C-alpha cells in the first residue's frame, strides 16, 4: 500500500509526535493496557504504534479498507466505519467499543474533510459523556498560517494533493473558528501542542519576496501576523478537549466594536485610589460631555476593599444622565500597564481613550473625537492638550491641591511623525485609538516598559492606522510639580532605558510609513545635506582662519623674541648706564607733583 495518498509515517518532527505527546499527558491508562484509544478516520494509523508503546489499546476506524488492512497486518484492531452524524454511527461505534474503557478518541486530519463537522462533534460529545468524559484530540491544518495569508494578498490560493490546502478539504479552520465550533458542541480545550513550522508546505514559490524572511515586505507582513495572534507559524492545530456544557456562539465571528448598543468611545481611567479628589473632577468633566456616546471604565488598580467601595460610590452617585456609563473594574497585579490592558479587554467602544485620574477634559472632548472618527474612520484620533502645573496643598478646610499658573498649550497642534520618533509630543488624554488596534493587530500596553507605554502604543498604532487631528484644545494635562507622578517615581535611567526600548522595538521590523513620507524624507535629507555643505564650508573657513592665526602668532612670537633681545642689549649698553641718575631725578619729581594733587 506504499504510495497511498494519505499513508503518512510517524516521525519525531511531525504533528503525530505532538499528538502522541498529548496522548501521554492527557489520556488515562490502566495497568492492564485495557484502556482503548479510538482513532476515528485513522487512515493507516500513523500513531498506532505510539499509542501501544504508551500503554494503550488501539483501535482504528476508517471507511477506506487500504489503511485497515495495513493496520491488521501490523496487529492492530481496525474496523471499517464511515464517520457521520447519524444515529447509526454512534450505535456502531458503541458496538465496536463493546463496553471497554475508553481512554480517549482521536480525530486526526479528519475534521477538514467533513461537511457536518459540528454534528459529528456532537455525536462524539454524547459518546464521551457516556464513557467517563473521555477526552478528544483533534489535529487539523491551520489555514491562518502566514504563508497562506501572504500568498492570498498576492492573489494565490494553491491547492495541493496533500497538505494545508489538500484539494479534498471542505472545511478550513484557524484557532478562532475551531474554538467556537468545539465550544458550541460542548468540547472544551484543556491542552494544546500545535505543530509549528516557519515554512509550511505552502511556502512556495521559494523566491517569493513576500515569503522570504529578510525582505521589508515580508517583515511588515510577518509583524502584522505575529501581533495579531500566535498561530502564524502553526501548520497543524493539535488540541485536547474534554466534554462539558455547550456554549453557543455564532460560527461566523463578525464581532467588532460596531455591534449594536456599543458606544463610540471607551474611556479608561486607571486609579490607585490615591487621588480621589482629582478623580471626582475627571468624572465630573465626563458628565459634562456634549456627546454622550461613551462608557467609562474606572480601573481600580491594587486598591483596598474600602477604596474599591469609595470608587463604586463615586461612580454610582453621578447623575442619572450618566451614571450608567461608569463601571469600576478591579485589577490586581504589578505594573502600570496591567490595568490598561485589562481595560482594553473589557472595552465595548469602537475607540479607546486613556484619561488618568487627574486629567480634565472640555465639554467637546468626546464630540471632537467622534467627528474625527466619522471623517477618517480607523485612524488614531488626536486633539490638542493644554497643560497646567499642580501640586498638593491645602484648601481652607481640608487638604487639596494648588494650581501653579494658568493653562498653556506647549504641545504642537499638528502631529509630526518624525518629531514623535524622537519624543512624545502627544499626551494620552488628547488621543483615542481604534479598538481594532488592540483586538485585531495585537497592540498592547507593554508591561516591560516602566514608563512611556503610551508613546509605544501611539507609534505602533500610527504606523499601522495613520492619524487624524483637530486643532481644538479638548483636554488639560496636569503636571505635578511636587508629589508622586511617573516623572518623579521613575529614575532617569528607567526613562532612558524605556526610550531606547520603544525605539528598538520599532526598529526590529520594517514599518509602513504614511503617504507623503518620501517627499518629507527627501526634504529632510536635503536640509541635512545643505547643513552638511554649510558646515563643511564653515569648517574650511575656520581651518584657514586658524592657520592664519597660527602664522600670525608665530610672527608675533618671533618679533617678541627679537624685541626682548634688543631690550637686553640696550640695558647693557653704556649710554643706558650713564643716564641712570638723570632718570631717577625725573621719577622723584613726578612723584612729588602727584602727591600734592591728591591732597
Amino acid at each position: 500500500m506504499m504510495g497511498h495518498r494519505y499513508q503518512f509515517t510517524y516521525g519525531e518532527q511531525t504533528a503525530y509526535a505532538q499528538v502522541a505527546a498529548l496522548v501521554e499527558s492527557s489520556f488515562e491508562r490502566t495497568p492492564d493496557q485495557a484502556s482503548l484509544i479510538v482513532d476515528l478516520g485513522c487512515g493507516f494509523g500513523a500513531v498506532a504504534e505510539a499509542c501501544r508503546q504508551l500503554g494503550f489499546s488501539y483501535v482504528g476506524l476508517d471507511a477506506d479498507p487500504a489503511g485497515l488492512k495495513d493496520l491488521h497486518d501490523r496487529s492492530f484492531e481496525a474496523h471499517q466505519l464511515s464517520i457521520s452524524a447519524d444515529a447509526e454511527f454512534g450505535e456502531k461505534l458503541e458496538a465496536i467499543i463493546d463496553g471497554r474503557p475508553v481512554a480517549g478518541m482521536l480525530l486526526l486530519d479528519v475534521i477538514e474533510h467533513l461537511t457536518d463537522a459540528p454534528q459529528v462533534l456532537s455525536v462524539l460529545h454524547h459518546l464521551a459523556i457516556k464513557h467517563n468524559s473521555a477526552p478528544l484530540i483533534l489535529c487539523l491544518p491551520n489555514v491562518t498560517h502566514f504563508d497562506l495569508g501572504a500568498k492570498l494578498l498576492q492573489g494565490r490560493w494553491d491547492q495541493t494533493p496533500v497538505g494545508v490546502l489538500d484539494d479534498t478539504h471542505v472545511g478550513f479552520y484557524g484557532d478562532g473558528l475551531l474554538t467556537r465550533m468545539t465550544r458550541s458542541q460542548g468540547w472544551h480545550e484543556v491542552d494544546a501542542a500545535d505543530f509549528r513550522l516557519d515554512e509550511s508546505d505552502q511556502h512556495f514559490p521559494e523566491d517569493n519576496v513576500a515569503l522570504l524572511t529578510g525582505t521589508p515586505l515580508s517583515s511588515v507582513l510577518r509583524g502584522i501576523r505575529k501581533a495579531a495572534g500566535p498561530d502564524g507559524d502553526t501548520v497543524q492545530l493539535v488540541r485536547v478537549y474534554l466534554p462539558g456544557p455547550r456554549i453557543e456562539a455564532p460560527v461566523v465571528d463578525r464581532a467588532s466594536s460596531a455591534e449594536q448598543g456599543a458606544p463610540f468611545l471607551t474611556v479608561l481611567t486607571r486609579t490607585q485610589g490615591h487621588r480621589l479628589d482629582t478623580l471626582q473632577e475627571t468624572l465630573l468633566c465626563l458628565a459634562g460631555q456634549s456627546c454622550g456616546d461613551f462608557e467609562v471604565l474606572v480601573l481600580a488598580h491594587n486598591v483596598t476593599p474600602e477604596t474599591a467601595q469609595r470608587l463604586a460610590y463615586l461612580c454610582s452617585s453621578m447623575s442619572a444622565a450618566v451614571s450608567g456609563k461608569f463601571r469600576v473594574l478591579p485589577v490586581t497585579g504589578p505594573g502600570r500597564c496591567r490595568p490598561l490592558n485589562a481595560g482594553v479587554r473589557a472595552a465595548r467602544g469602537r475607540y479607546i481613550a486613556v484619561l488618568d485620574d487627574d486629567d480634565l477634559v472640555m465639554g467637546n472632548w468626546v464630540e471632537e473625537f467622534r467627528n474625527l472618527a466619522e471623517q477618517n474612520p480607523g485612524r488614531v484620533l488626536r486633539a490638542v492638550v493644554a497643560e497646567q502645573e499642580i501640586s498638593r496643598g491645602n484648601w481652607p478646610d481640608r487638604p487639596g491641591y494648588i494650581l501653579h499658573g494658568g493653562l498653556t498649550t506647549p504641545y504642537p497642534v499638528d502631529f509630526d511623525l518624525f518629531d514623535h520618533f524622537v519624543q512624545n509630543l502627544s499626551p494620552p488624554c488628547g488621543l483615542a485609538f481604534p479598538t481594532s488596534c488592540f483586538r485585531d493587530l495585537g497592540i498592547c500596553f507593554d508591561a516591560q516598559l516602566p514608563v512611556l507605554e503610551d508613546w509605544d502604543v501611539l507609534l505602533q498604532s500610527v504606523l499601522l492606522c495613520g492619524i487624524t487631528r483637530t486643532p481644538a484644545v479638548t483636554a488639560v494635562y496636569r503636571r505635578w510639580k511636587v508629589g508622586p507622578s511617573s516623572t518623579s517615581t521613575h529614575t532617569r535611567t528607567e526613562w532612558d532605558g524605556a526610550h531606547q526600548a520603544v525605539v528598538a522595538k520599532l526598529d526590529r521590523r520594517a514599518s509602513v510609513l504614511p503617504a507623503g513620507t518620501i517627499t518629507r524624507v527627501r526634504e529632510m535629507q536635503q536640509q541635512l545635506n545643505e547643513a552638511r555643505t554649510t558646515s563643511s564650508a564653515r569648517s574650511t573657513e575656520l581651518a584657514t582662519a586658524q592657520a592664519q592665526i597660527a602664522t600670525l602668532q608665530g610672527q608675533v612670537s618671533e618679533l617678541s623674541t627679537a624685541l626682548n633681545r634688543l631690550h637686553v642689549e640696550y640695558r647693557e649698553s653704556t649710554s643706558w648706564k650713564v643716564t641712570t641718575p638723570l632718570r631717577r631725578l625725573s621719577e622723584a619729581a613726578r612723584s612729588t607733583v602727584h602727591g600734592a594733587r591728591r591732597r
Partner: protein
Amino acid sequence: MSSTLSVAAPNLQIQTVFYNISPGSVDRFLSSVAQASKLAKAAGSIGRVSLAIGDCSPLRTFRLDGIATLEASLLDAGIDDFTYDFFDENLGSAGGHNRLFNRFTSDLVLILNPDIVASPYLIQELTLRLNDSSIGLVEGRQIPIEHPKDYDVFSGQTSWATTACALIPRQVVATVGPFDSASFFLYCDDVDYSWRIRLAGYKVIFHPPARIFHDKRLRADAGLVVGAAEEYYAAEAALLMAHKWSRPDLVTEFLTTLEGGGTELQRKAAAAFRKRRSCGDLPSPVDPDHKVGQFHGNNWARHRW
C-alpha cells in the same frame, strides 16, 4: 412647620436663567442638579428643594405640553418644587435672576449657570461651608478652567464671586437687594453684587471642594473662546464698574483706551456709556473710600496667574 425645617435643614431655591441653551446642556444641567439635591437631602444638608427656571430665549425651551412630564421626572429625581417662567424677552442674566427672586421664599438660594454640570456633592459642600452668619455668599469652583482670581487659602475669602455657582442666604438677599440689572446686562452683575454683599459687611467665600463643570472652550493659545457679545458687554461693564465704584480716573483711562485702540464693538460700548452719562442714566457711585472695590488692571481681584 417651615421655620422648624429651616433650623434643622434649610430649604433651598435653585435658580437659573436660560438663553438659547441646547437641549443636551439642559438635560445635563437638570440631571446633575437633581442628583446633587437628592444627595444633599439624604445627607441632611438641606430640606426642600425648589428649582426655578427663567427663560430669556426667543422661543420656549420647554414646550407647554412637556412641562408636566418634565416636572414629574424632576420630582422623581430629587427636586420638590419646579417652576418654569418663560419671560418672552431677554432680560439678561441679572434681570432674569431678579425676576426669579420674586419666587424666593426658601432659606437659601443657589444661583447657577445653565451651562454647568453640578458635582453630586455640590450642595452638600456649599451648605457645609455656609457655617457662619458673617458669610454672605459661598462660591463653587469651576473646572476644567479654574478662575484665576486670588483667594485667602486659610479663610477662602475673595474679592468677588461668579454667579455661575453662588449660594446666598435669604437674609443677605433681603439686605443687599436684587442685582443691579439696570446697569449690568450680561457681565459684572456678579462682581457688583459680590461687592455690595461685602459693602453690607458680609464675607464672600470661595470654596474649592464645591465643584461645577463649566462648559467653556479654549483657543489654541489656551485663552478662552469668547463671543462678540462678551467683547461689547465686557467693555461696557468695565466702564460702569469704574463709574459705580467711584473710580472716575479709571473711567477716563478706559474710555481713552477703548476709543483709541479698541475694536469696533468696544468703541460702540464706549459711545453707549457716554450717551448714558449725558442722559444721567448711570448708577450713583458707591464705596467712595474704596473699602471694597478692587481694580487690578482689567480685573476685579488680584489674579493668581
